[in-house]
């Protein structure tokens, strides 16, 4: 009964979403107040209905209702309750329901936090979101219904893929989806503005916090995915340029370009067309990512089931979104106007370079990801594009962008003076040179690339710190009295510095050894000794495992013992490697068990990963920077104030 309620709720949602889509956009175009007024409550209603549906699915999992096909496929009576709950979005159908929950949740948030916006604008935005939601609802109802019954019901479930039984799974998809779906809000704002023919700086100001919010969730989602691959997959790497990773990274790159371009549009009114195009692109590549991951054209831990029907549907949805929005863009964009002028040396120019570099990098990643798929689809042969391509393209493209991060905030809008910028950048430059050249010596190996990476990190970090100190001194007020969006920008840039330091050091100084070890053997990992003491058997709730016993010591002084595991889950033949890691913020010692080689010997992975935590800490700092920026006061200006400002701007123009 409960699953049927869930099913019924999403059917109802479809009708509400379609009504919202039609009434919102048409009502705003014709100026029909009753239709416009329908948009806000409709958004809340959809969120409520999808929540009911989602809870029905969660309930089915918790109650072990194996007569529901999806529950039987993705859980098991022995599975602990928190994994049963997380299994709700552990498969294709449920993860789409989660997507819908997020989609309607964002729309509901828009209708809640848009009190200062004109009602017609809100109706347009929600109308566009209604169409997007309806598209996904159709997808769920026709190809991926999570409430489908299994007749007769199964005695027990097939269990959740053991890889997914991890805290990383509980959090990774929701965060990533929050990001993907969040960009649909920015997309809706852009489409609404095009429909209304009102692309001005107020439009950019409305979009900005939503773009930043989506971006910060996407940042966290990607970072968590990387963290999960590192810990759970037992591969010991943090990024593989895997097509699935790329399909979340491309929206991030374009989204990053978007939040910078929105800044120009808000502050100076320039780049309007480009910003709109980015807003459309960000959501489009999010959809493309969803298509690649969900359709089964890519094979990975994310490809749950291969069903051509799903791929075709998603591709159609993608085509409809991209086609219609680009058509609208072509029809409306030329009327938008150019906005404020700027000199060759100005913050606008620097941000333009940032945008070009990010867009080119994103295109290069798309090329490397889609090219093999395209060739395969055309029957022209099978090939793959490996990490060397992505590294060779990505690093040189991002290097200038990283160098500009420090310079950008020192440049004035409209026209910047180079001497004034130099004055602020001379100390960071010195620090960068000294640290860049010196640090690799201290770390044990010098190379130009390592010096550059560490130097860039020091350059950005010191420019951020010196920039903040100078501003706090100049304004004679405290740190927290500064505008939050300004602080957020600096915090996010500082996060980039931390990230770059982590990447450089781990790439330059890590050691990875695959060894055959006998009990009693000792091996060096960095400055540490790792002693193998044997393997014993143990039993978990739904698995059996072989547990390695290792002693980690430094200069003969024992630090702790480490226990990597090799698990065999009862419900499948699939063995699982659980790595054991000793972390102290500056380095990881990473151990995982291979297999028994006879006579008590085991193959063992011994990795030493300096600074690897900094990669994820950097991402978290970026996300926190985004959070700080959203909380800026000016986004909460009351409608009256906004209107006043608009008249002032109109008078000034």
């Amino acid at each position, binding site marked *: 009964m409960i699953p049927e309620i869930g099913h019924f709720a999403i059917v109802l949602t479809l009708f509400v979403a379609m009504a919202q889509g039609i009434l919102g956009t048409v009502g705003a175009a014709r100026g029909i107040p009753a239709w416009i007024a329908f948009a806000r409550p409709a958004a809340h209603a959809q969120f409520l209905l999808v929540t009911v549906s989602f809870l029905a699915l969660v309930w089915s999992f918790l109650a072990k209702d194996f007569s529901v096909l999806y529950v039987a496929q993705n859980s098991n009576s022995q599975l602990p309750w928190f994994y049963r709950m997380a299994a709700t979005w552990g498969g294709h159908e449920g993860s789409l329901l989660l997507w819908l929950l997020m989609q309607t949740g964002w729309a509901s948030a828009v209708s809640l936090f848009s009190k200062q916006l004109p009602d017609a604008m809100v109706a347009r935005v929600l109308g566009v979101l209604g169409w997007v939601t309806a598209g996904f609802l159709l997808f769920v109802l026709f190809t991926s219904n999570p409430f489908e019954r299994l007749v007769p019901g199964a005695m027990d479930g097939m269990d959740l893929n053991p890889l997914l039984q991890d805290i990383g799974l509980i959090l990774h998809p929701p965060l990533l989806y929050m990001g993907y779906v969040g960009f649909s809000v920015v997309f809706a704002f852009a489409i609404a503005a095009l429909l209304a023919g009102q692309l001005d700086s107020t439009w950019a100001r409305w979009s900005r916090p939503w773009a930043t919010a989506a971006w910060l969730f996407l940042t966290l989602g990607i970072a968590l995915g990387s963290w999960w691959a590192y810990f759970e997959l037992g591969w010991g790497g943090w990024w593989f340029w895997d097509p699935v990773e790329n399909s979340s990274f491309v929206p991030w790159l374009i989204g990053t370009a978007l939040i910078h371009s929105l800044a120009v549009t808000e502050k100076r009114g320039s780049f309007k067309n480009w910003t709109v195009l980015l807003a459309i692109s960000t959501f489009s590549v999010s959809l493309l990512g969803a298509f690649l991951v969900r359709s089964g054209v890519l094979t990975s831990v994310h490809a749950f089931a291969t069903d051509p029907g799903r791929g075709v549907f998603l591709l159609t949805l993608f085509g409809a979104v991209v086609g219609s929005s680009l058509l609208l863009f072509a029809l409306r964009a030329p009327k938008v106007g150019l906005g404020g*002028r700027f000199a060759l040396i100005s913050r606008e120019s620097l941000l333009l370079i940032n945008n070009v570099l990010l867009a080119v990098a994103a295109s*290069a990643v798309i090329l490397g990801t889609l090219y093999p798929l395209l060739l395969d689809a055309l029957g022209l042969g099978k090939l793959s594009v490996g990490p060397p391509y992505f590294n060779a393209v990505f690093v040189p493209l991002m290097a200038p962008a990283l160098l500009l991060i420090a310079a950008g905030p020192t440049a004035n809008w409209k026209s910047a003076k180079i001497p004034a910028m130099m004055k602020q950048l001379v100390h960071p430059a010195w620090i960068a040179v000294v640290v860049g050249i010196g640090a690799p010596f201290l770390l044990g190996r010098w190379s130009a690339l390592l010096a550059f990476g560490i130097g860039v990190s020091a350059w950005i970090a010191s420019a951020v710190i010196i920039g903040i100190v100078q501003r706090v001194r100049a304004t004679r007020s405290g740190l927290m009295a500064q505008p939050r969006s300004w602080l957020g920008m600096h915090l996010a840039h500082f996060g980039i510095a931390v990230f770059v330091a982590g990447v450089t050091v781990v790439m330059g100084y890590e050691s990875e050894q695959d060894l055959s070890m006998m009990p009693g053997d000792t091996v060096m990992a960095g400055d540490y000794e790792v002693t193998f003491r044997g393997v014993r058997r143990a039993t978990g709730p739904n698995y059996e495992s072989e547990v390695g016993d290792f002693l980690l010591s430094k200069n003969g002084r024992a630090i702790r013992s480490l226990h990597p595991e090799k698990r065999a889950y009862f419900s499948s033949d699939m063995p699982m490697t659980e790595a054991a890691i000793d972390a102290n913020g500056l380095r990881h010692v990473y151990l995982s068990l291979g297999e028994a080689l006879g006579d008590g010997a085991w193959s063992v992975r011994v990795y030493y990963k300096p600074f690897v935590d900094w990669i994820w800490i950097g991402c978290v700092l970026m996300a926190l920077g985004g959070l700080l920026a959203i909380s800026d006061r000016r986004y909460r200006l009351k409608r009256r104030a906004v209107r006043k400002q608009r008249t002032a701007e109109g008078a000034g123009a």
Partner: protein
Amino acid sequence: MKKRHKRIAIIAGGLAAVGIATGLVLNAFQDSLVFFFTPTQVSSGEAPLERHFRIGGIVQAGSVQRDGLTVQFAVTDNANTIPVSYTGILPDLFSEGKGVVAQGQLQGSGLFHANEVLAKHDENYMPPEAQHALDEANRNTSVRGPKPL
């Protein structure tokens, strides 16, 4: 600076960036394309000797031999078989009779020296490249019989 000059400078800068990027991309692209060959293609000499490539198929039952960290096994598409050697720790799901994809270089002796054996995520899952190898071999051999897997 005049508006026109500025625009020219911006366009020139943009073109230069795009040009450099295209150069980088194409250069890197050429070098890092990893082609895929089926065991049948490899045994008929279609695969290059000097380049890394991928092969895929089934790990032949009874072919896995370990010597410390070095593993020798045979990859088959049920028509032809290629001996493979790999040093290191194999992914969890590597086992006899299951699909596998390996990346490496072909030695003059006909041994495929793998430096990567690809990790797969699901026991029921067949790497599409391995499946492709089987399908190709199955189509080419006129023997009618039960389809492998």
